[in-house]
């Protein structure tokens, strides 16, 4: 049954018409120095879940039931499995849930014993994404993580036992990382069917960025390129297929929620700082947890701002998102304009992009942003 190659155009393009819901859980036990997500340590967990349920109940369903739910964070497993189950149930009730829908949750290794894994499965989740980051103790310490390699391996095993689909997140390019290859091999050996590899990024305002500013080593782009290519060859040797810049899956195991976002599909979103795309409009909630809860308690909208891309801008966005996928994107107006531009010719000649009669794709994903900037720089074209 699970044979669909996630790098096949027909497979990924189909997600443009599917719909999803994202739920943000902002709580973490501690803050990792590199993290700039909308998170905080502890807080009024019950109040927050209450607000989520209000926001879900007040939202409008799509024309079709949800094809995917993604509960991310932060650390969703800071909530008890039953509470998470209530959230899934509320979504299913308000939006409807397709029988084969993907229901994902993010989890941190230190929270995942076999019991919890079973409870989460019981609560309605059928896919779990584990924030392993590394299996090297020095790197885990450098990243300020709460778990050690053994906990990560044990958590992976517990997930494998309980869930039909398991992903591991890894971070590459941490300065001094000497164990990258064994981290990749280690998580693959645990039998995962999906792998996300992210380049350590120094985000503004984080503890990491302050450390770098005062002399700590910054990630080296050349080392990161090496690490990226190494992960690719190891993952592919294990039968996984790269289907997006940072994502690998066995055929049939691609992440539906992610594929919907890259196909410019629509998704509802709930929680502080959550981003949605509905009716062609992108909007996002206020970032502060207390304000978010306050607004929902007073019957106000949590939306902080919105952006309505139309015409050429929307077409550009479609290409930008689509080009992150290995399958690339139907050429369309913006793709054609790129291919016809001097920049496009330069990128083709350098082998950074490739094209056939009706499709365009990035052949060297490590240079993807170079392509993206050129797409953004295109002058709007007719027809």
């Amino acid at each position, binding site marked *: 049954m699970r044979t669909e190659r996630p790098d096949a155009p027909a497979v990924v393009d189909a997600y443009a018409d599917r719909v999803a819901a*994202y739920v943000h859980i902002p709580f973490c036990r501690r803050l990792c120095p590199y993290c700039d997500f909308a998170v905080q340590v502890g807080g009024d967990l019950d109040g927050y879940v209450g607000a989520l349920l209000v926001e879900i109940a007040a939202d409008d369903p799509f024309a079709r039931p949800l094809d995917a739910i993604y509960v*991310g964070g932060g650390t969703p497993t800071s909530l008890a499995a039953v509470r998470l189950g209530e959230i899934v149930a509320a979504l299913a009730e308000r939006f409807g849930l397709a029988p084969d829908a993907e229901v994902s949750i993010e989890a941190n290794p230190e929270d995942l014993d076999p019991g919890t894994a079973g409870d989460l499965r019981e609560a309605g989740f059928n896919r779990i994404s584990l924030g392993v980051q590394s299996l090297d103790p020095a790197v885990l310490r450098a990243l300020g993580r709460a778990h050690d390699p053994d906990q990560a391996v044990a958590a992976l095993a517990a997930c494998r036992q309980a869930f039909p689909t398991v992903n591991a*997140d890894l971070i590459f390019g941490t300065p001094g990382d000497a164990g990258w290859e064994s981290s990749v091999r280690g998580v693959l050996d645990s039998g995962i069917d999906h792998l*996300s*590899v*992210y*380049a350590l*990024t120094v985000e503004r305002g984080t503890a990491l960025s302050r450390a770098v500013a005062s002399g700590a080593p910054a990630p080296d*782009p*050349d080392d*990161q*390129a090496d690490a*990226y290519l190494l992960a690719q060859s190891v993952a592919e040797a294990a039968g996984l297929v790269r289907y997006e*810049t*940072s994502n690998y899956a066995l055929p049939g195991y691609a992440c539906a929620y992610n594929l919907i*976002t890259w196909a410019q599909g629509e*998704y509802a*979103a709930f929680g502080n700082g*959550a*981003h*949605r*795309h509905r009716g062609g409009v*992108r909007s*996002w909630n206020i970032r502060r947890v207390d304000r978010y809860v306050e607004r929902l308690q007073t019957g106000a909208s949590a939306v902080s701002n919105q*952006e309505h891309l139309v015409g050429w801008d929307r077409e550009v*966005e479609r290409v*930008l*998102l689509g080009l992150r996928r290995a399958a690339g994107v139907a050429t369309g107006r913006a793709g054609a304009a790129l291919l016809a531009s001097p920049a496009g010719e*330069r*990128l083709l000649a*350098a082998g*950074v992009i490739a094209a056939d009669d009706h499709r365009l794709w990035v052949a060297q*994903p*490590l*240079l*993807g*942003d*170079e392509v*993206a*900037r050129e797409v*953004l*720089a295109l002058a709007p074209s007719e027809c």
Partner: protein
Amino acid sequence: MTDTSRIRNFSIIAHIDHGKSTLADRLLERTGAIAARDMREQVLDSMDLERERGITIKAQAVRLHYTSPASGQEYLLNLIDTPGHVDFSYEVSRSLAACEGAILLVDAAQGVEAQTLANAYLAIEGGLEVIPVLNKVDLPAADPDRVALEVVGVIGGTPDEVLRVSAKTGEGIDELLEAIVHRLPPPAPAGDGTLRALVFDSHYDVYRGVVCYIRVTDGRVSTGDPLRFMATGEDLPADEVGVLTPKAVPVASLGAGEVGYLITGVKEVERIKVGDTVTRRDRPAKEMLPGYREPKPMVFSGLFPTDGDEFERLREALERLRLNDAALTYQAETSRALGFGFRCGFLGLLHMEIVRERLEREYDLELVTTAPSVAFRVKLAGGSVREVRSPQDLPEQIDRIEISEPMMRVMILTPTEYTGTVMELLQEHRGVMSSMNYLSKERIELVYRVPLAEIVFGFFDQLKSRTRGYASLDYEVDGYAVADLVRVDILLNGLPVDAFSAIVHKEKAEVYGRRLVDRLRALIPRQLFDIPIQAAIGSRIIARETVKAKRKDVLAKCYGGDVTRKRKLLEKQKEGKKRMKMLGSVEVPQEAFIAVLRVDED
């Protein structure tokens, strides 16, 4: 209508920063030219650039009414504040030509410096009456007795003729005003009453067209008069005449000895020339006024619009700016790397920087500047001599016999303790000593013959830092000398970039090439392919570096549903990219072009 004997025309001259503009403030204030609420520091420095940099760039004329408390007599004072930086000494000489007197201002703590001497000599040679004035006597470090002796040593007279003021506190200003009316002569009309007026400056006003600043020497000019500009032969009406108080105020007429402005309604800037003589069409004067020596540009550099479509706008901007900056010259030029632009001549690097900034600000242009060069003379195989203002115009080795470079007579004033240091510095810059004079036991004047190319780039800063700011310098043109010069070319990705070429002394070529290559390597961002950067003399490579191809340029991070943020980030990066110039297939940031201006700095 003012009786000529009640007019005093004078310039304030000094070394840079000795307080000319601040003194002008006090004179404006004391004579009530400016209401207290409109007063701000250095009010005559009206250009944004002048205010930001705290220096005067343009000479500025203003009319004051002064009633002598001693005699009750009313006077009309025309004051011209001048710039002190050596690059703008041309402004000083033009201002002096419109005056009978000069206030020679000397910082009572710093003492006599190089432009004090240079400007004092200009005034004396021009036959002007000079009032020496010590400024900043309020400073604890002021030593007026010593400095008064230095001043007397330069211009003669006795120490008790040297006034003492503080432009900051206002001390001594009343005495100075009295000295101006009593010690400076009134203008003496020559001629027979036939109108002659000197155009000593001008600027372009978007609404009024060309505004001329004039000094009437003979006769009278009134609104409505039919006028003739003698050098250009233009016949134009006097649409408006007026005075600067410092606001422009129209008046019925300006008589002999008066300074003011004249508007003719002309919009085409090329029809008016600074230095021209204005007379009446119906009763023309026989002879023109002496006018000015054309200022001689010392440094040449190419100015190119970043956006090739802006070439015509740049031409227009240069035409208008030249009206207000007679020392600027320009000539269309084509660069293989940069397209169409202009080779411009400047009085020095500060002048170049100012012109570039004024073009960017006042005319909203984005410009690339090429490495500055002096004008070389090349003797060709056939025996003829060609002037080369741009390295790319240097004839091939086999076609030329020798290259001469412009030389300068450089005068440096320094405390004697730095004599050795200064001599060493000049040696490094290929200088040859011509003389050495003691101004006093503590101060010495060193005169050297130095190639211009050695002093225009960074020399001044080196002199200042090695003498802890105590030495000052002035220079003047001193012919040409044959030298062993070569052209250093820069190749980017194998292609020569003419904008980076420079003609340098053979012994310094390697260091120059190495430094420039190093700078460029640091400034050119990694791109899709390896970019070799080479410095070459002819076909010989003297330095080489490589900007390695970039391998990773992607945000490989989970960004969840937040699509907007990533796009905005890329958009910002794209804006940065737009400011790059494509040289062949290589993107070069603006800073790279600025780097070539600073190769001499360590």
